[in-house]
């Protein structure tokens, strides 16, 4: 029987198997990035910046030029690249420890300068790679290896909402928070990525897509239940949606 391939994995990706834990949604997000770059015809000329976190090795997965950045500094590295390779799609891929903790200044200032780059921000409410320490995004009550009694407001504060914070920065053009816990949301997430790269290629400024992601191993929850945990605990605190849209801004003008 004749057939069409309606879903082909590994688009924009090398054939290397991901090293992620079973059910870790880093993998889904990688696939979306690869797909969008491929579909927009950017994969042959894109330059990606890998950050430090579980995804540190993604330079072996994305099938384009990749530079590995110091912890938190990916937006600065991307700035350097973009300024000398203006016509290329430049993106970073960063965890919440990387972007919201050590790298907050670099992220905000890339947005502030209106750098024409796209940031893929993977918020799993924890430091995955180093073994499950508290992140700025860790939820109140969440136990981690450095919040053994559960995160408390007193002393460690309430979780940081990065997209909302960046929305106050004029140079941030496109900001959206998405989730990948079911096919419908995966599809929406992909749309967001498309818009983000589109924003960049049209020279409209800084774009960031925040992904609600899971860390089954360090959450200590089975992969499928992790998706539920994310829906029940993360999304209420980190509402999905568009926080900044260049088209909206233009209308408003």
């Amino acid at each position: 029987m004749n057939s069409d391939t309606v879903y082909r994995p590994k688009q924009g990706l090398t054939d290397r198997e991901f090293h992620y834990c079973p059910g870790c949604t880093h993998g889904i997000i990688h696939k979306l990035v690869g797909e969008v770059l491929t579909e927009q015809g950017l994969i042959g000329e894109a330059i990606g910046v890998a950050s430090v976190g579980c995804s540190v090795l993604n330079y072996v997965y994305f099938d384009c030029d990749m530079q590995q950045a110091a912890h938190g500094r990916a937006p600065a590295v991307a700035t350097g690249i973009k300024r000398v390779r203006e016509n290329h799609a430049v993106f970073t891929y960063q965890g919440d420890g990387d972007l919201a903790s050590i790298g907050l200044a670099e992220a905000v200032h890339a947005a502030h300068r209106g750098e024409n780059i796209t940031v893929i921000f993977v918020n799993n409410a924890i430091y995955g790679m180093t073994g499950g320490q508290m992140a700025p995004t860790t939820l109140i009550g969440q136990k981690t290896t450095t919040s053994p009694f559960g995160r408390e407001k007193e002393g460690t504060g309430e979780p940081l909402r990065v997209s909302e914070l960046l929305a106050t920065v004029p140079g941030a053009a496109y900001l959206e928070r998405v989730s990948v816990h079911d096919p419908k949301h995966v599809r929406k997430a992909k749309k967001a990525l498309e818009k983000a790269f589109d924003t960049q290629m049209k020279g409209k400024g800084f774009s960031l897509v925040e992904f609600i992601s899971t860390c089954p191993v360090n959450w200590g929850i089975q992969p499928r239940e992790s998706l539920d945990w994310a829906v029940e605990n993360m999304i209420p605190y980190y509402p999905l949606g568009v926080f900044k849209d260049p088209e909206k801004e233009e209308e408003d003008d």
Partner: protein
Amino acid sequence: MAAKGRILIEEDRCKGCGLCIEPCPVDILALDESRTNKKGYTPLYVTDPEQCIACSFCAMMCPDNVITVERFKKA
């Protein structure tokens, strides 16, 4: 009911996480608890291939690039 399509499973990439299972609208996916793949995980299998509607939901949710989806052409 004849299959509208099928999924191809690159079995040795599968990590047995099960993320693909629930999204299947026709509920034909399961982990094969009877054996492990090269990696040591119990891999995905299709319980009733005839039912597949080639919706790609399983493939979209798979974090490990295990699943390819094909839709049969109406001859």
